[in-house]
């Protein structure tokens, strides 16, 4: 259960946040929310797909890290250390364990005190500190504040983006059939992507409107991102090879 508190320099003076990557810190997720302004950077590393929200009224943009729940193929363990094998990480991952909250008109930073990134220890090597000795904010917290602001505005914009995609009927459901090196047949379903045929058929006036809002670029970035499926499947095959090698070693 999350345990949210408004961040302040009294109660959280000594709090430290772990910034290392790893499943132990909540990184073992199949996907993360993203938003149009982030597409350009993410499309070079992750497939960007769309998923219907709970009540069916909007579509969320997601960067995909794996093919099943809890699978993040970008987490690589080497010599006991875990790294996230991509130069760009979605802001919705980077923000953890912080959230943006609204108290009246003001936006404020909240922290989930039960998140595994909140260090149980207050020693200097336990993670990043948030506040300076006399109550000022650290560079790390400044960056988090900026991440949260960008994310907040980005997700606002993502709602408008989703409404535009629905109105222009640019989304279609798709499935990816994947044959892995071990011969298994797998299917990824339940996601949506851009229907390029309908995109090409849009009138000049509509294209202009999309272009002015920046959505046309975001749409093409999402289309381009689908070529990352190949790389993601390669990652999956590599992870299978590793676990098979492990099995053989064990058998011997």
């Amino acid at each position: 259960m999350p345990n949210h508190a408004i961040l302040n320099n009294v109660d959280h003076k000594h709090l430290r946040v772990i910034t290392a990557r790893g499943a132990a810190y909540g990184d073992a997720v199949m996907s993360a929310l993203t938003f149009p302004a982030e597409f350009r950077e993410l499309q070079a590393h992750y497939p960007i797909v769309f998923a219907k929200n709970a009540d069916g009224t909007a579509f969320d943009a997601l960067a995909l890290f794996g093919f099943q729940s809890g699978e993040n193929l970008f987490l690589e363990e080497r010599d006991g250390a875990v790294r996230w094998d991509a130069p760009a990480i979605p802001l919705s991952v980077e923000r953890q364990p912080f959230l943006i909250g609204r108290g009246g008109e003001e936006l404020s930073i909240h922290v989930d005190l039960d998140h595994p990134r909140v260090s149980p220890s207050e020693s200097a090597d336990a993670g990043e500190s948030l506040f300076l000795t006399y109550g000022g904010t650290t560079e790390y917290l400044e960056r988090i504040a900026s991440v949260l602001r960008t994310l907040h505005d980005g997700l606002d914009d993502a709602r408008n983006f989703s409404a535009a995609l629905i109105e222009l009927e640019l989304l279609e459901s798709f499935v990816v059939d994947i044959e892995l090196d071990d011969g298994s047949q797998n299917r990824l379903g339940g996601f949506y992507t851009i229907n390029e045929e309908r995109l090409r058929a849009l009138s000049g006036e509509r294209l202009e409107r999309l272009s002015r809002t920046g959505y046309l670029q975001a749409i093409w970035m999402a289309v381009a991102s689908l070529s990352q499926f190949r790389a993601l499947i390669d990652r999956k095959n590599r992870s299978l090879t590793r676990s098979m090698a492990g099995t053989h070693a064990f058998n011997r």
Partner: protein
Amino acid sequence: MSNTIEHIVVVGGGSAGWLAAAVIAAEHRHLRVTLVESPGVPPIGVGEGTWPSMRDTLHRIGVSESDFFRECDAAFKQGSRFDRWVDGSDGDYYFHPFVLPQGYGDANLAAAWQARHREVPFADLASFQPHLCVQGRAPKQARTPEFAAVANYGYHLDAGKFGVFLRTHCVDKLGVRHVLDHVDAVVPHEDGERRGDIAGLRLRESGTLTGDLFIDCTGMQSLLLGGHYGVPLLHQKHVLFNDRALAVQVPYATPDAPIASQTTSTAQSAGWIWDIGLPTRRGIGYVYSSAHVGDEEAARQLGDYVVAGGGPASISPRRIAFEPGYRERFWQRNCVAIGLSAGFIEPLEASALALVEMSAAWLADDMPATRAQMDVVAARFNEAFTYRWERVIEFLKLHYVLSTRSDSSYWIEHRQAGSIPARLQELLELWRTRPPSRRDFPRIEEVFPSASYQYILYGMQFAFDGAPRASDLPQEADRHFREAARLTAQMLPALPSNRALLEHIRMHGLPRI
């Protein structure tokens, strides 16, 4: 080429006329479609239940399901519940859901039910859907796309609003021409190859409207097929006695009262009462045999039902008289009848709109391109729809034949051999030792599948006694029953209430994809 079919004229603006016009216009964009209706003729407004086939029909004509729900005051229908049909006692009920029994065709479910599970109603054991109905669940989620289903469903709708909704779509989107005028006379071709065909209709205000194919959707008066061509009605009152209906609209007791997810049919002394839940009101009516109960007594029984269900003490129902039967032919020369003009039996199992959809789809699929093709298509249409009307009558009759009620002559006479069609008697003979199978209903497009017969037979406790067969697979049947129970447990918490989803649709619509 002079004998090319170019202009379709639909006569009559009820839901049959507009549905036929929409299905044809949506499929054949090169054809001209004109619909003429008399100003001020009120549509009959019975038949507020549809089959799941209506989802395909609406999708086919290109309307949005969200718009349909909002503008037709529509709700979900997941099947029928029959109260007091079996023996008339309290707690006598069974379901005919739209979903097939789980694993239907893979094992002899009926035999397994009869041998080991008779304490549970057949449909409740073999399908998750009765449980969804009892709990007032919707058949889908807010995120399920338009026309897609978690559990198979049709609709309850306001027939008057449905006609207006279809008309708007036909005129605005499908290019159907709408003419408001009285048809004063039919103008036949006087000579030549087309002698005997309808050349046109003389309209009171706007002169003669000519056409190549005329679709008679004029309701029970059957202006063209019955009136002009004199094609006789094959009366069916000796099989299905009902010939009157009293219909009333009843408000919900509270604005948040649950909306029933099924049509409830409650047997009475001389007929049965339908109860259909729309978002804003219930439609309730008593369909009965005038030979067995007087109008006043029928009105009293209807009033009792309404009051027992929390409705108002004083009602003023609309009375409808009908002659149960269907035409000897539906298509003659260049005239085809669709809707009540082709026939009407009684609203049990809501086959009226379904037959309209089937007729319109047949016409759209097999639309003759030339006058020369028309007689070929007409002969096939007549054969197919005679078959369908016969099957509808037998299936409806089955509901009465299996009842053990003996509280009135109505129910007793329904079981007399002389009132039971020969083919139904033959099937009942076969079903004494085995369940209905696909072989009993061999056509590609049967009106009712064999599963529907099973739901009625075993819902009404029809017993059969046959030697076991290798294909019975009793363990396989039990596995399917467990699967139905598992699906029930999975769906109940995941599906919103009927009213909650309908409210969501009113506010937000359903996703298109």
